[in-house]
């Protein structure tokens, strides 16, 4: 049987190479994320950006990359194996048992996967190195940072990807092994019209999961709810992928009944092909829909979070002018500003880096201890009842006046699983630890950060940064205060400008996230292109037959064009529809007023990419028409 396997690989090398490439890219993405996460976790200084930000940034990237990789890898294997249905049926006809077909497929899938894993890991370690300058520029790692490559990320990649590949091969093999030997004898090769009950159930489960995730923000408001809502897009896309053939069949049947589509041979053929090869078309549509959906959701939710942060910060500050300067000037600035005529009230704030323990330490993996601490910042108020209103929902902010007290944002509480009266473990940059008691829970965590402490917090915190004095002026005195402050050598900015600047600061790493997003989108794009190439590769016989029946090349080109248009329209529509619920949910949960967060230009770019890939696939098929 080994000979059969090897010959089959040789004969189907283009699709095997496509799957191999997809698997290499998937492994490289996951491996590179793993290397960078591990490097961050191994960093000796727990308060350096490498330790605090790198695991978080690469973790969220890696999470999306894993979901995409699982999706894309399994659909690539499924598509390339489906292409060879007839060959497997033929083997069944000449006496191969179902078990032999299954083992043939499994051997091939695992062979390709293992080879791709090794190549992908090498590529991934280079990829991680290539990201370093960008990470340094974004302030996520320090000068001199070099990724640590160990065997762990490779093991992780193997544990994640190999079972997915194995399962995809197994599912495809199950279908192939079930083929009746007579199906090889018959000349019909159209896709099966009905979906298996398991597949239908799985589609409904994913749909229900997506709807549940969409409604989460209603029950869990804030950033957590918003992020869960966004994950609905992936569940919806999976539901679409599972139910795809049935959806395509319905859509194509509806289209076929339209008079417009019945007027020309090309459109009749295109809709008939969509109907007859609903699985093939699904395989082409789904990765493109994923491209549109994921791109929209990722950028949309990020923008919604940023917008929510700005809104919360603006809402929290009841003053109208803000001073920012060096830490050593802060005390003087506060005193001077408080003494100016026309100033009604002042509040000084500082922030400090801190780590919050979110879960118990695992004794067996000491370096994994870093994972149980979440990096964050504490906002320190000299006057908890002053000009900053964090929107307390539980407890009392006045209790921050006492020692050892902390207020926690409701979003962060979901991480620690604690409430008012409980103690939380904090680690400070000077190496000290403290366990303050939670005295209040507040809602404006996106704007103010996860923790707030009173004046005593300053002593515990050690080094602080970004001292800020917020000034409330008496009615009509704003200009006078501005001038007086300037005369005293203190530059004040209006609150709106301050909020805008603070928001811009928080999105300073947007270049990095854009690059990372582009990497993911390029990955999906390549996978989608690969799926299209596989889908058209098997069509040489069909084109030859149409040619023999008298279809002109022009008609065939028109047919392919219409098919590409169907793929593109379906991908953009499904991608947008599956993204919308999560975006709406995130917006409802976090932002006042309604905003989808999606940049129309960016969405148009995604849609255009989907259209270009769809037509590029058709252009590949055109070459085939010409070759025949």
């Amino acid at each position: 049987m080994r000979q059969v396997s090897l010959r089959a690989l040789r004969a189907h090398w283009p699709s095997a190479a496509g799957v191999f490439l997809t698997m290499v890219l998937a492994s490289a993405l996951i491996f590179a994320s793993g290397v960078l996460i591990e490097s961050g976790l191994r960093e000796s200084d727990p308060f350096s950006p490498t330790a605090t930000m790198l695991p978080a940034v690469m973790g969220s990237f890696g999470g999306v990359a894993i979901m995409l990789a699982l999706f894309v890898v399994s659909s690539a294997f499924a598509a390339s194996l489906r292409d060879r249905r007839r060959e497997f049926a033929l083997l069944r006809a000449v006496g191969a048992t179902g078990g032999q077909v299954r083992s043939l497929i499994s051997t091939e899938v695992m062979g390709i996967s293992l080879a791709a894993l090794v190549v992908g890991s090498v590529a991934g370690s280079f990829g991680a190195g290539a990201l370093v300058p960008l990470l340094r520029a974004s302030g996520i790692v320090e000068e001199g940072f070099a990724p640590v490559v160990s065997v762990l990320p490779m093991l992780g990649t193997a544990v994640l990807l190999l079972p997915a590949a194995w399962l995809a091969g197994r599912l495809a093999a199950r279908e192939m092994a079930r083929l009746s030997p007579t199906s090889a004898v018959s000349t019909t090769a159209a896709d099966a019209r009905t979906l298996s009950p398991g597949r239908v159930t799985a589609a409904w489960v994913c749909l229900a999961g997506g709807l549940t995730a969409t409604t989460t923000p209603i029950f869990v408001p804030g950033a957590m709810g918003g992020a869960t809502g966004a994950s609905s897009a992936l569940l919806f896309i999976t539901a679409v992928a599972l139910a795809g053939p049935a959806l395509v069949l319905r859509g194509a049947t509806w289209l076929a009944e339209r008079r417009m589509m019945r007027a020309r041979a090309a459109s009749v053929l295109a809709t008939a092909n969509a109907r007859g090869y609903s699985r093939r078309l699904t395989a082409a549509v789904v990765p493109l829909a994923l491209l549109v959906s994921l791109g929209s959701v990722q950028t949309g939710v990020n923008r919604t979070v940023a917008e929510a942060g700005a809104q919360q910060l603006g809402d929290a500050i009841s003053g109208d002018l803000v001073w920012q300067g060096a830490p050593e000037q802060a005390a003087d600035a506060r005193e001077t500003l408080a003494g100016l005529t026309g100033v009604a009230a002042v509040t000084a704030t500082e922030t400090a880096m801190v780590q919050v323990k979110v879960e118990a330490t695992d004794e067996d993996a000491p370096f994994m201890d870093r994972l149980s601490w979440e990096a964050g910042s504490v906002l320190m108020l000299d006057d908890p009842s002053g000009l900053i209103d964090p929107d307390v929902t539980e407890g009392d902010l006045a209790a921050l006046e006492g020692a050892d007290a902390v207020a926690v944002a409701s979003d962060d509480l979901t991480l620690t699983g604690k409430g008012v009266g409980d103690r939380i473990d904090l680690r400070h940059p000077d190496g000290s630890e403290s366990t303050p008691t939670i005295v209040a829970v507040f809602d404006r965590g996106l704007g103010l950060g996860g923790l707030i402490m009173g004046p005593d917090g300053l002593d515990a915190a050690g080094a602080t940064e970004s001292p800020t004095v917020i000034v409330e002026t008496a009615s009509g005195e704003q200009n006078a205060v501005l001038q007086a402050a300037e005369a005293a050598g203190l530059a004040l900015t209006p609150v709106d400008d301050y909020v805008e600047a603070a928001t811009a600061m928080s999105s300073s790493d947007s270049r990095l996230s854009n690059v990372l997003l582009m990497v993911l989108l390029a990955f999906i794009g390549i996978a989608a292109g690969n799926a299209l190439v596989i889908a058209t590769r098997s069509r040489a016989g069909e084109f030859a037959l149409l040619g023999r029946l008298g279809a002109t090349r022009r008609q065939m080109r028109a047919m392919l064009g219409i098919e590409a248009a169907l793929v593109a329209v379906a991908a953009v529509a499904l991608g947008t529809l599956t993204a919308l619920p999560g975006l709406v949910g995130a917006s409802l949960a976090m932002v006042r007023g309604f905003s989808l967060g999606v940049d129309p230009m960016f969405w148009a770019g995604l849609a255009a990419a989907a259209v270009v890939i769809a037509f590029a696939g058709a252009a590949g098929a055109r070459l085939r028409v010409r070759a025949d």
Partner: protein
Amino acid sequence: MSIPANVQAPPTTAVALTDVRKTYATGPQPVHALRGVSLAVSKGSFTAVMGPSGSGKSTLLNVAAGLDQPSSGRIVIGDTDISHLNPEKLTTFRRRRVGFIFQSYNLLPHLSVSENLRLPWWLDNQTPDPAREQELLRAVGLQDMAHRLPTELSGGQAQRVAIARALATQPDVIFADEPTGALDSHTGASILATLRDAVATYRQTLVMVTHDPQVAAAADEVVFLADGAVVDRAAGASAAQISQRVLELGR
């Protein structure tokens, strides 16, 4: 006439079908492709199956060869009742004891002529016998083309490979479904001569669906099917008589 179900097929019978029915329920109306076919084929004989299109010839062959499951009835090949074998056992049995030649040649496109020929051995985890392989290739006149791929063969040559493959495991019976249907008459005649010679040399039992009265006239027995049932059997009939009978059935 039908053979009672509890009687074992006599040792001289290669294939015995007892009240075999096959119904397809895929459409709105069930299609009765076989309506109680009973048939016994003697060892070493050549049986031709004839009938108009849609009379159930191919279904009969697929079911008799174990490629397809009957809806009811009993099929015995040699001394094995295949109607109750589970799919894995049936496939293994078929691989070892049944040869099948399809109208489309059904060669794996990426395997060479000799590799296609070795497939039954490979599937059975046996080492192919090079001497046997050479002998079979000589028998079908392809000794010089062992390394060619199916795409480099003519239709007639491809069908010769399929014949050699069907003979490879020395099966109890070879089923052939219009093996010359896709070939011109000259090539077809030459293929049939090859098949008949090979069958005679190896004392094989052959059951062949054919539309050609000339071919059927060379058979030991001709079975006529119509509407999924055996309507007539003839031994030693001339091509003209067979032709006449088929025409009557088609009316």
